[in-house]
């Protein structure tokens, strides 16, 4: 007779003997046989519910405030080469350079008379940054030239009219400024070498494309989004929306996409190749959106609004995944992602630069392997069970100020009624006749 019965050595499982290599480490094995794991679905679901609840409990997005400005902050830029450096400019002409790691000011000066309208870091690592202001000058700064009393700019460009924004080229020592049209400058020349304009609009915001580096997008007072090409020295295409856009941002990973922050409290994402429709309309803000910036991962963008909130959207999501606000934060005029996409920097009317976490509940400390694995597992669970109403409800629940809550409800109501009206119109119109979808409603026209 062939006989063998199960017979284990207890020593193999003792953490202080051979089982734990004598180190007191308890040994673990996993047997994925489903028979040993009854109720796996139900338990997994319960874990998912726990995970979203913990997520909400640990959500502490606000990290710290950077104080130093006296007036509201209207311009913000991050360094293209140094993850820690951020520069902000306020309404009294003060420009401050911040170090996020040290949580403090590195450099500051009164750069302009009146508002600082735009800041842009230059691409190469040794170079400094540009600022422009209401005093109709653009200044090129480096944190080097100090004459005992004040900081001096490397160079100053004043042969321009009103300057609303400045942005530097991603490869060459070239930058663009906007105001009455768009001017393209070489760093070494005192005059712009190209002037681009479409009609007589005032351009408020301008952004170079980071991949197709010669493309340039501007938004202006005639509610248009205009695409320029600095090689042909001509505007290429223009898109007119119902209301004015305040800010634009290119998606760095899907470089054919860009998002415009609109005065009508929505954001519009367009595909460069097909501008007939907005690819996505991002709702959720209740007042004009003032600023938008993409995460370096291209998966998300952050927007700051006149309604005193910051929201984070998935780049293809209709609604925001996160809303940040504090009691003291005023109108948000500028937002930026940090270069490592872990932080969000906001500048608001109350003159304080605030630093937030991108993921509200993830810890910042270096994680142990177990902790990291647990977080990854929970993330996957949330993803997997996120569509179940109970889980979604907990995940989406956010407390917002009463006013915003009310306005949001009102906006939703308005949207619903519009949709209803549109549906009815479609039902009672002749077959074949078409009315514009809500998505396209904001687009008025297009000129090539």
């Amino acid at each position, binding site marked *: 007779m*062939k006989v063998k019965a199960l017979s284990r050595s207890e020593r193999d499982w003792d953490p202080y003997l051979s089982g734990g290599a004598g180190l007191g480490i308890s040994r673990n094995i996993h*047997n994925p046989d*489903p028979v040993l794991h009854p109720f796996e679905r139900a338990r997994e679901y319960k874990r998912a519910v726990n995970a979203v609840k913990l997520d909400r409990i640990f959500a502490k997005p606000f990290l710290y405030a950077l104080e130093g400005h006296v007036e509201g902050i209207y311009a913000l830029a991050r360094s293209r080469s140094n993850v820690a450096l951020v520069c902000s400019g306020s309404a009294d002409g003060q420009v401050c350079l911040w170090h996020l790691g040290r949580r403090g000011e590195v450099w500051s000066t009164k750069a302009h008379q009146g508002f600082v309208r735009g800041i842009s870091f230059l691409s190469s690592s040794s170079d400094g940054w540009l600022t422009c202001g209401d005093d109709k000058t653009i200044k090129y700064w480096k944190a080097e030239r100090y004459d005992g009393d004040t900081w001096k700019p490397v160079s100053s460009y004043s042969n321009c009219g009103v300057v609303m924004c400045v942005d530097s080229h991603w490869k060459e020592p070239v930058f663009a400024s906007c105001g009455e049209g768009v001017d393209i400058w070489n760093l070494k020349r005192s005059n712009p070498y190209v002037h681009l304009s479409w009609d007589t609009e005032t351009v408020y915001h301008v952004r170079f494309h980071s991949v197709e580096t010669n493309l340039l997008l501007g938004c202006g007072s005639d509610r248009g989004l205009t695409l320029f090409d600095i090689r042909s020295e001509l505007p290429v295409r223009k898109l007119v929306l119902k209301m004015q856009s305040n800010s634009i941002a290119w998606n760095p990973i899907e470089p054919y996409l860009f998002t415009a922050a609109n005065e009508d409290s929505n954001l519009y994402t367009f595909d460069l190749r097909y501008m007939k429709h907005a690819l996505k309309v991002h709702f959720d803000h209740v007042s004009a959106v003032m600023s938008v910036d993409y995460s370096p991962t291209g998966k998300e963008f952050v927007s700051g609004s006149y309604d005193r909130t910051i929201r984070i959207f998935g780049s293809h999501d209709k609604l925001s995944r996160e809303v940040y606000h504090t009691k003291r934060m005023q109108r948000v005029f500028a937002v930026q992602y940090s270069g490592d996409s872990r932080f969000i920097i906001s500048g608001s009317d109350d003159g304080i630069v605030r630093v937030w976490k991108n993921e509200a509940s993830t810890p910042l400390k270096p994680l142990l392997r177990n902790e990291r694995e647990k977080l990854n597992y929970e993330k996957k669970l949330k993803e997997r069970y996120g569509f179940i109403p109970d889980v979604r409800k907990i995940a989406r629940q956010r407390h917002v100020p009463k006013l915003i809550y009310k306005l949001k409800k009102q906006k939703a109501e308005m949207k619903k009624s519009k949709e209803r009206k549109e549906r009815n119109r479609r039902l009672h119109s002749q077959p074949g006749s078409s009315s514009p979808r809500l998505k396209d409603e904001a687009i008025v026209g297009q000129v090539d």
Partner: protein
Amino acid sequence: MDKYKRPNQQKSTGKASLRSKRLLQQSRNFEKEALQKAVAAEVLLPENGGILEPENELEKTYSLSQAKLKGLVDDQTKRKIFDLNLDVLGPYKAIYSRSSRSLLVTGRKGHVGLTFWREARLQTELYLQETIRDLTFLHTDQYFALAQRKYTFIYDSQGIELHCLREHRYPTALTFLPYHLLLVSALENGNLIYTDTSLGTIVSKLDTKMGKTKVLAQNMQNGIIHLGHKNGVVSFWTPVTSNALVKMSVHRGPVTGIGFDPKGQNMITTGSDKKVKIWDLRTFRLKKQWSLPCVASEMTVSQHGLLALAMNSHVWIWKDYLGETEETVPKPYMKELIGGNEIHSLDFCPFEDVLGVGHVTGFSSLVVPGAGEPNFDTFESHPYETKRQRKEKEVRLLLEKLPPATITLNPQVIGTVEQDPQSRLKELKELERNANVPKQREKKRKRGRNKLAAKLRRKQHNVIDHRRLELQERLAKEKEEKRQSKGKAMLNQSTVAVPDGVPSFLSSLYEKKKKKKTYLSSN
């Protein structure tokens, strides 16, 4: 590979956006990958299961007694074959904890012993001087509940009485749902009561309206409580429905035992009609049955699906009892006689090849090779867990306590897309109808019609096989040929009769004429 496959719930309707189609495909790929990984990871499992195999045809596994087995196994296993002689306060019942570490032995007259059976170390001993009807461990080895004369009591491993559950009046049987932390008692008045042991609240109290029973079993895979009744019915209960989910008439006479295969798909029942029956729980139909020499009073199923039945003082164990056909009577895998003592409880030890037998004069531990799961999952139940691991697990268990509503016939349904209620109802009704269809039996006809040859002929009457088809074809062909040759002959005749240039539709006239002619000529 099949072991790791989960039943596929979602049926795609075919209409999906490109994005969701891609997501679906992605998830399917993940599933496939996980399956492959699970299979590949099998090499990492440290243990293999026990074996008991005859080496030639004359050897039979069931003739191997424990005394003989003792000579064939290693020392550690030898120590697992032992008897406890406790002949005063019996009859005894015994159960193992889910981690397999502890053994709880109770005598009917109030004797309780909790031991670490591997080390043969007594943890606590109590003399309650009260009838003990049933026993169960709670979520860890640290706590156990006893169904005593009037109430259910909860004790800890030190033997301290922690709670007296006064709502459980005159309990007859107990069980514990470990993932829901529910203690279930069947009461003498036919009620079934669910108590949440983490909160101490009564979750539900159900009136079964079927009288007193002590046959209570839980399906570990879906948490449904099965009660066996005196009228041969097994009823299925969950705490959230006030009526039985299903009632199955399984035996003629009282049901004496209920068990489940490890996957929870088959229910095994024994009854006073001396039968063992295996029921498919997906279709609620009988899969197999066989007769026993006498009534099986106790039953248990091991982690690897070994079925042990107690008949008076005999224990019979079956291994591959789900044979090819419904009729074949399976041979027992092992047999053992417990020295003339009537058996009152059977329980396989998890993760061990050990069967614990409680009987009138104590407790016997038998070795049954191949009974237990060789590879435990340390995150699920761990025979050698440290104190710290146990504490951690307890916290996790509390955090992941499942709500009572997750006890359903199909626990895989959670996290799937909700079905349209009407179609679901239809499906359920269909299932019920199919389950209730009486088995088709050949009707007994009257005399004379039952001769074998006639019966076979009748049976063949409507059978269409290829021979028959060929025959039919040939006949049809012959018929066709005949018809055609006849037609030709007719045509030939008519060409003779009808002159040229006459339209064919007038040919009949000529035929007539011809006939007349012949007639005339004959005159």
